[in-house]
């Protein structure tokens, strides 16, 4: 829990940086810069959900909806 708290504090620290203005976000708005998995990767995520003991924290399911782990 201490590590998680440290992560959150560190993450919060970034918010104090100078904000990037909307007109400066050309590169940030590039489709490849999205902070989510590529839509086409959903099937890979699905078979990994079946074939591995670990799941979640990737925007996909952490369980449920299938007879897998």
């Amino acid at each position: 829990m201490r590590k998680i708290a440290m992560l959150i504090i560190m993450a919060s620290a970034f918010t104090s940086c100078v904000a990037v203005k909307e007109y400066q976000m050309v590169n940030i708005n590039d489709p490849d810069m999205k902070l989510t998995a590529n839509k086409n990767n959903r099937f890979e995520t699905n078979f990994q959900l079946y074939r591995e003991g670990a799941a979640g924290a990737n925007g996909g399911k952490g369980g449920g909806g299938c007879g897998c782990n």
Partner: protein
Amino acid sequence: MEEKVVVDVDVINKAMKKIFAVILLLVSMNAYTQDSTAVYKKRVLENIEIDFLTSYYTQDGNNAAVTGGIGSEKITDITPTFVIAIPLNDDDVLIIDAGISAYTSASSSNLDPFDKSGASSRDDGNNNSSNTKVVGSPWVASSGASQADSWKSLNANYSHSSDDRNTVLSANISLASEYDYTSFGFGGGYTKLFNEKNTEISISGKVFLDSWQPQYATEINSYIEAGESLNNGFFSGIPILDQNGDLSVKSGADSWSPINTTLLDNTSRNTYSLSMSFSQILSRNAQFSLFFDVVNQSGWLANPMQRVYFGDRDNYYIGEPESIPNYTSSTNKDVFQLADDIERLPSSKFKLPIGARLNYFLSERFVLRTYYRFYTDDWGVTAHTANIELPIKVSDKFTLIPSYRYHEQTEADYFAPYEENLSTQEFYTSDYDLSAFSANQYGIGVRYTDIFTKFKIRGKLGLKNVEMKYSKYDRSNGLSSGIFSLGVKFVLD
């Protein structure tokens, strides 16, 4: 009098004209107001978007869980899916996601390895069908009801964005079914952007209320159906062999029986998950996010199809006695070992995955996408997963996307290979998905993008992008798989 009426009608006509003029003015003002607003409030989604996604997956390995951790893991799976995003108005979007996963599985087929058209089609050589022997093998796909199935799913997600686009509320509902499993899910989420949209915090919850329509290993099911007798039902007239290949007695302490004739006592399987994420733009070229899930599952978490063989119990077989010494070899095509029990696992599981993404816009040509996840649960599995993608913009329309993923995990407390669990344990499984292994996945993808959607179908459906990817996945315990995926996005003008 008549003149008065004519004058009154003129007055009324003039008054009506004025009223119409005022109404028209109000309508036009309203329209103008709406147009003015539209200038300042961009629609969350401009047009209806339709994604057609599909994949073709194959795998093979030697540790099928349905046959107790030994046997063919051959699977093929094809998954046509449609995702339709519909803007309901400036602020609200509805996403409908409907898909099918149609698969064939050698492992699942061996729920009944003695199916007549599977391994048991072998006869004794005299062309007399009545003399066809009942045989089976964990290495030969049978053709019972469980050899092919389809998983069908339907999801709906509704989201509402605030006027300043700094708050997003969402709700979703899902349904899924396959022949032995159904799922109903729902959830909601809240996202807040601040710091000039440089920072985003999101929280969401999901509930899945799933249930089994359990299917069992045929020998266990038949034994229970026959009143726990080997002289009735399926086993009537079928010889059972011991480890030496000799005929076994069919009653008494030296005969085969599963150790537990109580199967599922609870068909529900519920999942409750809470997800939190934090995203931050670091510079004009870099941003990262942290994901944190808390997942609790309860109910029947084992798979009732999966057999277990104990190391401290005698072994019994149906089939050819001379193949028993080669049982664990893929050369065994005609003998099958009777299960000691189905997989048993605790009725609750607590999972804690924590993930992070860091994306960096290296140049006009290269983008670096990285992902790492740490996972732990109270069944003893701890895992590390890392993924890296390097989209290369070959031209303004084509992007090449090489990727690499590494995964390693420790084994669950209840896992042991074929014949290594003990009947004295409370929980046991030989499912290699819960074993210790590492896995490497290499992928290559290509994407074609046309932001102007020049290519149109029937003049209205504009092609926005096409993406293809192939990935090869190899696990250190021998399982190997490949997946080809295709995604096509259309925009409705």
